């Protein structure tokens, strides 16, 4: 600050100052001084201090808060992780991944581990390119030769596909992988959510075949994807996970912004920390959360800066095989799956996934029989499949040995296991892991935004922590706070001045967890120092049913215990003004 006061003006200044000095008390003003509130010592037993609290409300409508990535990343991770946005359907991603693997150029495929190469081969297998050598279908080669047709044609007839069609279509492949490998992972089954009557443990089901996505995932680019979807314990044993590595799953651009409108009293409640009878602020958002978000307003939430077509820049998918060779079934019983031990494998193992995908792919094959004749018009063999997908080959006239009967999945299971170990891989060495790049998520940004908006509108409580952080105005460690209904909205039951005892939700949470433990043995207000006669209740006041609360008038005497076990007497004295109360607080224990 500069002042224009040239030295040569001193005589004049003296002249000017003279009247000021001589007329002391009339006009010459001292500079403003703001008294700083110094921390007080703990209130000793027997001492009384007075505190005034006000119930100032700043009722705002359409109050907007725009958060960019930097602002969001500055929020506590627990807050971000607590904002569930959507369950992202994974089938498109998996289908894209499998398609990419299948269509990988040969030179790039050659760089894959042998097991991954074999997996790729399996994805591409058709009646025409199938190598039946070493499988129980090997006999079909001879039978086909006997009747003068390629074995591919016979296989195609059985599976009702062309010779160049894949045994397992990509959709079935995808569904089996998603349901078996991914759907069995605990992280895709339950997510954290608010505790309510229907979800007392705070666990909410995830939509089938979906990945629960939180705001934390979005702003941090899913940096813990591999960890979340890695190995974990399940009821079937250890799930090996299905993503061992993931990078660059980004659905947001640098200019990402999330704008939320709220209608609320933006000011905190004013309360007291009994320890030293100091003033505190308690964020008021939680108590208004049901009405905070104007979800009927289409603009109540805007999300901008999403990547138009989200993708993962690098992803390594893993699928483990069972360490043992799993024999195919040899009996139609027990229906409907037969007797292969594969059905008792965990759903994520390769063998189990193969039979599941085959079952899906062949479910629509119509029951039929195809008879093959020799050139002499003598029937050589027949291939039949019934409505349970049970396949039987029968030979006639000593043409040869037919492959043993089995279900379609048993056929493919054997085939897959053999082919997976091509290249000299022994059983247990063919765990599949393939790394793909730039795999599209398969869901456009607009759909993501719409789903986010829909989900949050249906459950605004999920945004409670975020909303509290938007206003982030809790200060101090209040034990109780002052509440007064908004003018004009007061019912007879709500009229007057109220003291609310804090709940656990009133304690702010940061990266290190709650700012303080909620350690109250006797929440509420009492009529006696022994805390035996509670005068507060959880009755609904202002829509709140979670706080112990009591209406107070001048002359009332209350007792209250803080989180350190100290007991205080509160004398309600005359109100300083309509929306203020004054309390004399005396420590009694």
């Amino acid at each position, binding site marked *: *600050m500069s002042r224009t006061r040239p030295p040569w003006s001193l005589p004049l200044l003296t002249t000017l100052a003279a009247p000021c000095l001589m007329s002391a008390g009339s006009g010459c*003003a001292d500079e403003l001084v703001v008294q700083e509130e110094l921390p007080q010592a703990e209130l000793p037993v027997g001492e009384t201090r007075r505190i005034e609290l006000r119930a100032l409300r700043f009722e705002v409508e359409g109050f907007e*808060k725009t958060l960019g990535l930097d602002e969001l990343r500055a929020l506590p991770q627990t807050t971000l992780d607590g904002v569930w946005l959507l369950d992202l359907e994974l089938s498109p991603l998996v289908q894209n991944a499998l398609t990419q693997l299948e269509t990988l150029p040969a030179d790039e495929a050659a760089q894959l581990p042998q097991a991954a190469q074999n997996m790729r081969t399996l994805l591409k297998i058709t009646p025409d390119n199938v190598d039946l050598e070493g499988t129980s279908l090997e006999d079909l080669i001879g039978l086909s030769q006997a009747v003068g047709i390629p074995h591919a044609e016979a296989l195609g007839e059985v599976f009702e596909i062309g010779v160049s069609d894949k045994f397992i279509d990509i959709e079935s492949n995808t569904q089996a992988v998603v349901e078996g490998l991914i759907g069995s992972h605990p992280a895709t089954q339950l997510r954290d959510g608010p505790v309510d009557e229907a979800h007392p443990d705070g666990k909410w089901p995830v939509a089938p075949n979906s990945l629960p996505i939180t705001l934390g995932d979005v702003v941090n680019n899913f940096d813990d994807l591999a960890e979340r979807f890695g190995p974990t314990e399940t009821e079937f044993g250890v799930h090996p996970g299905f993503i061992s590595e993931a990078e660059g799953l980004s659905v947001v651009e640098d200019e990402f912004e999330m704008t939320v409108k709220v209608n609320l009293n933006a000011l905190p409640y004013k309360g007291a920390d009994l320890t030293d009878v100091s003033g505190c602020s308690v964020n008021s958002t939680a108590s208004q959360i049901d009405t905070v978000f104007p979800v009927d307003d289409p603009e109540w939430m805007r999300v901008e800066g999403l990547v138009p077509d989200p993708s993962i820049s690098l992803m390594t998918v893993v699928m483990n095989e069972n360490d043992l060779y799993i024999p195919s079934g040899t009996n139609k019983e027990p229906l409907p799956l037969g007797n292969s031990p594969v059905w008792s494998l965990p759903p994520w193992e390769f063998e189990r996934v193969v039979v599941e995908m085959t079952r899906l792919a062949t479910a629509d094959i119509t029951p039929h029989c195809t008879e093959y004749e020799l050139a002499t018009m003598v029937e050589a063999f027949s291939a039949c499949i019934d409505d349970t997908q049970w396949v039987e080959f029968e030979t006639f006239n000593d043409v040869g040995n037919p492959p043993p009967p089995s279900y379609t999945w048993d056929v493919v299971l054997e085939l897959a296991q053999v082919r997976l170990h091509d290249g000299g891989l022994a059983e247990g060495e063919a765990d599949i892991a393939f790394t793909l790049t730039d795999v599209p998520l398969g869901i456009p940004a607009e759909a993501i935004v719409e789903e986010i908006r829909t989900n949050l509108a249906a459950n605004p409580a999920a945004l409670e922590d975020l909303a509290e952080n938007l206003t982030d105005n809790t200060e101090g460690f209040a034990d109780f706070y002052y509440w007064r209904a908004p003018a004009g909205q007061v019912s007879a039951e709500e009229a007057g001045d109220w003291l609310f005892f804090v709940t656990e939700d009133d304690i702010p949470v940061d990266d290190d967890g709650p700012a303080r433990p909620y350690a109250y043995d006797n929440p509420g207000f009492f009529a006696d120092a022994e805390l035996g006669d509670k005068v507060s209740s959880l009755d609904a006041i202002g829509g709140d049913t979670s706080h112990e609360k009591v209406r107070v008038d001048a002359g009332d005497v209350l007792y209250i215990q803080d989180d350190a076990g100290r007991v205080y007497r509160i004398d309600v004295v005359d109100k300083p003004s309509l929306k203020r109360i004054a309390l004399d607080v005396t420590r009694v224990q």
Partner: protein
Amino acid sequence: MPVRSDDASLLALSGPPNPSELGSDRRRAASRSPFFRPRLAALALGPVLALLWPGAQAHASGLDVPHIGTTFSSPTTQDAAAVYWNPAMLGFADSNEVLLGVGIAAGSLRYQRDRLGAYQYADGLDFAEPIDPASIDPNKPGAYPEVRSPIFSPNAGGFAAFPLIQDRLALGLGVYVPYAAPLSFDEEGAQRFALQSAFIAVSRISAALSVKVHERVSLGASVSYVLGFAQLRRIQDFGAVDLFGDALARPPINQPNDFGEDAPSTVRELDVLARPFALNDAFSHGASFSVALAANPIDPLWLGLTYDHGSRANFRGTFQLDMNDEFFTQDLASQGLSFPPLVEGDAALSFRLPKRLMFGAAYDISKTLRVDTNLAYVFWQDVDTFDITLDSEQLAQPALEIPRRTTVGLRRDWVGAIHVEASARAVVDKKEKVRVSGTLGYHSPASPDATIDVASPDGQRLLGALGVAYQINPRVAVLADGELQGILPRTVTASDYDLGNGRYNLLLGTFMLHLQARFGSKAKPAKPPVRPIES
């Protein structure tokens, strides 16, 4: 000494008036009445207050220090105080002269506020109409206890006149304090949003030159350096600040509101938005000039005409704004509203002081009796805005687009003021050693009901002054004079936004002692019978 309503207007501008800018009419009044005029207060206060408090500033009136020269001084009086009143009169000086004066001014300014508007409870924060009827304080309207500011201040000044070339060229010098306004109200009074206390003073160094172009006609001009000083305290109502209202209306807060200069009374004077403000040690350096004509067309008749150009007053000092409320310091910090408890920085206050045209005529009925009159018109309508600038890093609220430096133009609605004064001066003893002077006057108000407030207590002003001079010897005289002035009790019911409704009373008295010494060769009159009455 007459008190002028135009001065009052100047006060309302809230800066110490530049004497030269106030014009000869004002100067005359000052010379005759060593009072602090309400308009000076307004002059000093208005702009500063307007800084954050637009509409209410537009009040003329205040407190001049009227005692410039003596009660005998006037635009048609040939004494050293003509440096102030009419430099052209110096041309008729026939000897060197020194005029020194000291005295006091005392009085009181009283105001009984009468709230006529509707107000919400002061501890509320409803920011836009319609206000819920349950939030309206039914007890707010009505009359409030009268507040009073005592006025007391010393005053002093000195002038000198030196005829350089006989009957041709004369020089004048002056050092004086033409304006001061010490006001101090109850800090918790109902007027606190207009003013709690103020001290405004202006000193002036003037040099004047007069050329006698004819034995009966003289031309004169003066230039002045003007140093002003101001301090004040008031409660700043943020509900009346455009900047604040705009910030709330913009993203991210997005709350259309009625705050601002034109805020209705229902959203004004809320406790949380009532922030103490202080302008500290503000100094103004300015310059002005005047040109004047004096004529003696016939022996008994004297005419004087003075034009004062006015100037800009630019006060620069520091400010303090007490923002020590959690609403401003922490509750909305996430939305970008986070002031330190005490905001401090540089303050500048700039406004235009008006042009002034004054005409004086004196007639010597006899050798011992003169009557004269002054008519003045003050162009208060020249004052279009007060420009107030606050500059402080602590003011900046980037998220709300509130910059560190803010300039607010505050519109005034003043009107031109007319001053009419009549005086009689006489020699009352045979030895011509005792002379007396009496003045009656009227000044019309410059501030309309819509914009008056306690910082510029303007009104229909009446004044009366008496003076006596005793000639100790041919070279030395002593003078004593006093003045009483006041505004007719003014009851205002049409104040914009109910800021200044109520009843205003102002009464001021001054008493001054002067020493007048003449030395050097006495001029030979070109026409011996023709000589103006000397003070």
